[in-house]
C-alpha cells in the first residue's frame, strides 16, 4: 500500500505550516512571472488556417477534386454511387446526356450537369473516393477555404473540377 502507485505521479498532500518566505507570496509570484515571461518569447505553436499549412501525411484526406482524363475530359458519369456511399449525405448531383459535339468535354455519354458537395456536412471519410467506379472523385491534401456564409461552403463544379491546364496531383494517395 505504502509505495504502490499506478502513475508514479503520486504526491503526498501536507498541511505543514508555510515558511516565512512562502507566506510572503512575492517570491512565488515573481517565479510565476518568470515562467510567463519565458512563454512570452517562445515560438508560437499556432498554424493560421488558410495561410499556413502544417505538414500532412501522404494519405491526408482534404478538399475533393473531380478528375479529368489525359485528354481533358471529365471522368464523372453521374452514376450517383458517391452520393449513396456518403455517410453524411453531403453530395448531390444532377445527370445530363452528352450531346453530339461535346465528346471533348465528357468521357462518356452521361455526365454530371451539377455536382455539389456541402463542405460543412462532409466528414472527409473518403467513402466517395472508394465508391467511385470511374476514378472521378478523389480527396486531396488541399484545405477547404475559410468563408462567411453557409451557402459559400456548398462547392459546385466550378470549385471541384480540376482545370485542364493545372492538374491536381493525387498520385501520392495511390501508394497507400
Amino acid at each position, binding site marked *: 500500500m505504502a509505495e504502490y502507485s499506478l502513475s508514479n505521479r503520486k504526491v503526498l498532500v501536507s498541511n505543514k505550516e508555510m515558511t516565512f518566505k512562502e507566506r510572503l507570496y512575492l517570491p512565488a*509570484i515573481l517565479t*510565476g*512571472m518568470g515562467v*510567463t515571461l519565458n*512563454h512570452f518569447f517562445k515560438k*508560437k505553436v*499556432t498554424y*493560421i488556417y488558410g495561410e499556413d499549412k502544417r505538414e500532412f501525411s501522404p494519405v491526408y484526406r482534404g478538399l475533393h477534386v473531380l478528375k479529368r482524363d489525359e485528354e481533358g475530359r471529365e471522368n464523372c458519369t453521374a452514376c450517383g454511387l458517391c452520393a449513396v456511399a456518403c455517410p453524411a449525405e453531403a453530395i448531390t448531383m444532377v445527370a445530363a446526356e452528352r450531346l453530339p459535339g461535346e465528346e471533348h468535354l465528357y468521357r462518356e455519354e452521361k455526365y454530371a450537369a451539377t455536382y455539389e458537395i456541402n463542405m460543412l456536412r462532409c466528414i472527409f471519410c473518403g467513402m466517395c473516393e472508394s465508391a467511385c467506379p470511374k476514378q472521378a472523385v478523389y480527396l486531396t491534401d488541399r484545405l477547404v477555404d475559410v468563408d462567411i456564409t453557409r451557402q459559400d461552403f456548398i462547392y459546385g463544379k466550378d470549385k471541384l473540377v480540376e482545370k485542364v491546364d493545372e492538374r491536381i496531383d493525387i498520385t501520392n494517395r495511390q501508394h497507400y
Partner: protein
Amino acid sequence: MGIGALLIEKTILVTIIFAITLAIAAYSTYGERKVAAFMQDRIGPNRAGPYGIMQPMADGLKMLMKEDFVPEQANKFLFHIAPGLSMLTALMVSAVIPWGKSIIINGREIALQATDINIGILYILSVVSLGVYGVMIGGWASNNKFALMGALRASSQMISYELPMGLSLIALLMVTGTMSFNEIVSQQNGWNGMQWNIIYQPIGFVIFLICAFAEANRTPFDLPECEAELVGGYHTEYSSMKLGFFLFSEYTHMFVSSAIISTLYFGGYNFPGINSLYEILPHNVVALMGVGALMIKTLFFIFLFMWVRWTIPRFRYDQLMNLGWKRLVPLAIVNIILTAGIVLLVNK
C-alpha cells in the same frame, strides 16, 4: 497675453491629454489580448488590419451596434449615469500628472500639466475614492443579485485598499515634503535625473503597487467581476456601449495608475542624463524626450498589470481582506515609522 491665452493653452493641453488617454486605453485592450495570447503560446487577434491593429475599432463598433438593454426593474436614472461616472473619475485623475517639463513657444513657458495644484496627492486620493461610486451605483441600480454582490465586493475592496495606499503615500510625503506633483518630480531630477523616489521608498512602492492593482480591480484582485461566481459582477446587466464604458474605464484606470506610479516613484519625466542633454540640445527637444520617457515608464507598468493578470489566479475574498487589513496596513505603518526615524536622523 492674459486669461484668454491661458484658457486656449489649457484647452489644447487638456484635449491632447484626453485624446492620448483614450487612445492608450483603447490600445490597452488590444495589448491585453496580445499579451494574454503570447503568454499562452498563441498569436492573438490578427484579422483586423496588419497584426490586428484595427481590433480596438472593430470592438468599439461591435459594442455600439449591440442592443442597449435596460432591465425592467432597474433604477433607470442611476443605471444610465453609472458607466459615465465610472469613466469620469478614471479620467479626472490625469489632470494633475505632469507629463513633461515646460516647453517654450515664442518666449512663453507652457507647463505640460493640466493643473498644478499644491495638494495634488490629496486630490488623487479623493478622486480615486470617488471611483467606487460608478461601480457601486451600477451594481445597485441593476436590481440583480449578482451585480449587487459584485458591487459590494468592489466597494469594500476599494475602501479597504485606499487605507494602505494613503499610508504609503504619507511615507512618501515625509521624504519629499510636498504634495505638489510638479515639485515631487522636480526633486527626482538630482544625480542627473536618476534620484528617483523608489530608492528612498522601496517598501512604500510595493504597497502602493499592490493597492493600485486593487483600486483598478485587476487580477489578483478582480473579485468584483469574477466570471466564475458572479456571472459578470457589477456589470452583469449592462450591454452595448454602457458595458463598453465600464470595461474601458478599467483600462483608463490602469493607464492613469501606471502614470501615477511612474511619476511618484520612478522619476516622472526625468531620465538618466537629462541634465547633460539640456546643455547640448534645445530645451523643447529634451522636454519632449522627457514626455517620451514618462510614456515608456507608463507603458511598462501597463504591461506589468497585464503580466500579473495572466500569471496568477485571483484571491479568495477573505484572503483579500486579510491581506489588506492584516498585512498591508501594519506594513505601511512600519514603513512610516522607519521613514520618520531615518528622516529625523539624516536631518539632524
